[in-house]
C-alpha cells in the first residue's frame, strides 16, 4: 500500500510549523516552555554535579534548608507565575467569541470520515462536501464541530490546536491560513477501528479563487453526466442508497456526498491520492484498504463495470 495522504504538506502533518494566527501562539508557547524546562534541567544537573564532586564548602551550602526555600519555593513561584500570565495572555486571542459575520462551516465527525457543510448567512447548509475543507486565506473561518456517533477530535496542526467533537454538544473553533496551500489534518481522539486512517485536508485559496471554487461546487452534475454508462453501474450496485450526487436521483445520506468527488484531492478520508485507479480499487475492496469502514466491498463488479463507474465518478468535478 502507498504512504498516506498525498498532496499535503508532509505526513504526519507537521506540528511545529504554524501557518496561521491561531496556530502561531501555540508554537511560541511550546518553545518558551521547552526552553524554560531545559534551563531548569541544566540548573538541576549543575547542582547535582556540585553535590557529587564539588568542594566541601559548596556541598555544605547545598545541604541546607535555605536552599529548599529559595530553589524549591521562591524560584518556582516566580517562574511559574510569570509563565502562567505570559501563556494566558499569549493564547487569549485563540478563544475569543466568533463574530456574527464570519464564514461558518459545519464539520461533523463520523466513523471514520468528515461530513462538511458550508453554511450561508442564515446558518442553513448551502453546500455539502466531505473530507476536504476549502477556505479563503487571510480571514478567520468559524467551524461548528459536531459528532454523529462517538467522540472525534478535529486537528489541523498548522492552523490551530485540536478541539473535540462530542455527541450532544457543538464546539466552535476558528482557523485561518495566511498563505494558499494544502494543510493536512487528522482525527486526534481515538474513535475505534481505523481511527488512524481518518485524515482530511484543508485547502486554502486566494479569495478570488475561493469564489470560483464555491461557484463550481454549487452547480449540480451536468445533464450529460447521467447518461454515462458508469451512472448505470452506480444505480445497479445500489450506491445511491448511501451517496448523494446533486442533480441526479441518487440522494443517500449515510456516506460522503459524491457530487464533486472528482475534484477532491484524496480518497477514503485523506489516505489515498484520488484518481481513477484508486477509485476503482476503493470500490472493489475498500475493506482491505481501510478495515472496518462502513462501505462494503464490491467484488461482484466486473473489471469493465469498475472502469465505467470510476471514470464517471472521476468526471464529477
Amino acid at each position, binding site marked *: 500500500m502507498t504512504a498516506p495522504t498525498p498532496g499535503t504538506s508532509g505526513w504526519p502533518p507537521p506540528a511545529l510549523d504554524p501557518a496561521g494566527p491561531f496556530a502561531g501562539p501555540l508554537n511560541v508557547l511550546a518553545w518558551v516552555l521547552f526552553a524554560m524546562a531545559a534551563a531548569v534541567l541544566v540548573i538541576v544537573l549543575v547542582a547535582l554535579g556540585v553535590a557529587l564532586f564539588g568542594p566541601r564548602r559548596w556541598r555544605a551550602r547545598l545541604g541546607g*534548608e535555605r536552599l529548599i526555600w529559595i530553589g524549591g519555593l521562591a524560584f518556582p513561584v516566580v517562574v511559574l507565575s510569570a*509563565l*502562567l500570565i505570559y501563556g494566558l495572555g499569549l493564547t487569549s486571542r485563540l478563544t475569543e467569541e466568533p463574530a456574527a459575520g464570519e464564514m461558518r462551516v459545519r464539520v461533523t465527525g463520523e*466513523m471514520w470520515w468528515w461530513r462538511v457543510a458550508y453554511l450561508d448567512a442564515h446558518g442553513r447548509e448551502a453546500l455539502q462536501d466531505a473530507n476536504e475543507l476549502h477556505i479563503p486565506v487571510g480571514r478567520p473561518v468559524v467551524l461548528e464541530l459536531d459528532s454523529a456517533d462517538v467522540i472525534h477530535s478535529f486537528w489541523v496542526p498548522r492552523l490551530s490546536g485540536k478541539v473535540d467533537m*462530542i455527541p450532544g454538544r457543538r*464546539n466552535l473553533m476558528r482557523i485561518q491560513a495566511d498563505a494558499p496551500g494544502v494543510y493536512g489534518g487528522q482525527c486526534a481522539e481515538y474513535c475505534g477501528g481505523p481511527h488512524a486512517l481518518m485524515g482530511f485536508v484543508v485547502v486554502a485559496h486566494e479569495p478570488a479563487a475561493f469564489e470560483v471554487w464555491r461557484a463550481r461546487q454549487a452547480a449540480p452534475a451536468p445533464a450529460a453526466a447521467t447518461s454515462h454508462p458508469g451512472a448505470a453501474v452506480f444505480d445497479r450496485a445500489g450506491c445511491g442508497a448511501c451517496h448523494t450526487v446533486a442533480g441526479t436521483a441518487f440522494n443517500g445520506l449515510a456516506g460522503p456526498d459524491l457530487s464533486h468527488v472528482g475534484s477532491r484531492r484524496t480518497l477514503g478520508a485523506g489516505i489515498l491520492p484520488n484518481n481513477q485507479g484508486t477509485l476503482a480499487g476503493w470500490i472493489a475492496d475498500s475493506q482491505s484498504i481501510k*478495515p472496518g469502514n462502513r462501505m462494503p466491498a464490491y467484488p461482484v463488479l466486473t473489471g469493465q463495470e469498475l472502469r465505467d463507474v470510476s471514470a464517471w465518478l472521476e468526471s464529477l468535478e
Partner: protein
Amino acid sequence: MKGETGFDPGLYERFPTKGPRPKGELEALEQVWCGPKGWQWITAINNNFIGVYYVGAAMLFFVLAGVLALLMRTQLALPMNGFLPQETYNQMFTVHGTVMMFLFAVPAVEALGVLLLPQMVGARDLPFPRLSAYAFWAYLIGGLAFFCSIFFGLAPNGGWFMYPPLTSTTYSPGINADFWLLGIGFIEISAIAGAIEIIVGVLRNRAPGMTLDKLPIFAWAMLIFACMIIIAFPSIILSTLLLEVERALGWPFFDALKGGDPLLWQHLFWFFGHPEVYIIFLPAAGAMSTIIPAMARTRLVGYRLVVLAMLATGFISFGVWAHHMFTTGMPTISTSFFSAASMAVSLLT
C-alpha cells in the same frame, strides 16, 4: 502503670533478660517464624511473603504489558505495516495501557508498602494480614484473567480511558468492554482494601515512641498515597458502575441521544486519573527520599518541608483533573483555572 494504649512501659525493665533460656525455646521460635514449606506458600499471610509475591506479580504484569508494547512498536516501525491486524492492535494498546496503569503502577507501589512498611514502623506484620493476602490473590487471578482475554480476541478495544460512547453498547456490542468495566471495578476495590490496611498500619501499629514526626519519610508517602486512593478510586468505581449499568440495563448516563452526557465519564475518570499520577509518584518520591540520604550517609534535609510538600501535592492534585480535557471546549475561565492549579501542583512537586 499503663500507657493510654494499654502498653505497660514497666515491661521494659525486664529487658535484656538474664538467666537461662527455657528449654526448647529456640526450636519453638524457629518453628513459629519459619518460612512456608511445600504447598504452605499458598496459605502464607505474613507480609514478608505476601509482599514478595505482590512485587513479583506486579513485575510480571510489567513484563507482559512490555511485550505488548514491543509488538506494537514492531507494527509501527514501518508505515502501513501488516504485522498486526487492526483489531488486534486496538485491543493491544487498550490492554497495554490498562495493565500498566491498573495492574502494574498502583499495585507495584502498594506491594512495596506491604513488603516494607511493617518493618519500617517496627511491627511484625500489617494489621489485617489475611486481607492483604486476599487482596494479592484477587489481584493476581483477576489480572491474569483480564490479560488472557487478549488471547481470545475478546480484550477491550476502547483505549485505556474507555471514553463512551465508543464503549457503549452501540459501538462496542461485544463483551470486551464488560471485561474492562467489571475487571477494573474489582481491582480498584482490592486497591482500596490495601489502602485501608496501609493507613491503619501506619497510624496504629507503630513502635512505642515513634511519633508521627519521627515516621520514616517513606511511611509518610505511603500514608498520603493510601488516603489519596480512598478519595480517588471511588470515582472510577462509580464511573465503571454507571457505564456497566448503561450497557447492561440501558440506563442513559453517557448517551447524548437519551439525555446523558459523554463528558460525565471524562470528569469522573480524570478525577480519579489525575490523582492517580501522584498516587504513583508519591511513594516513588518517598522511596528516593529514604534511599538517597541513607546512601549518602546523611540526614534528610528539611524533613518537615518534604512532608508538607507531599501533603500539599496530594491535596492539590485533586483540583487539576480537567487539564486532561482542554480540547473538549470548556469555557476559557475553566481552562485558565485548571492551568493555574496544574502549575501550583508542579510547584510543590
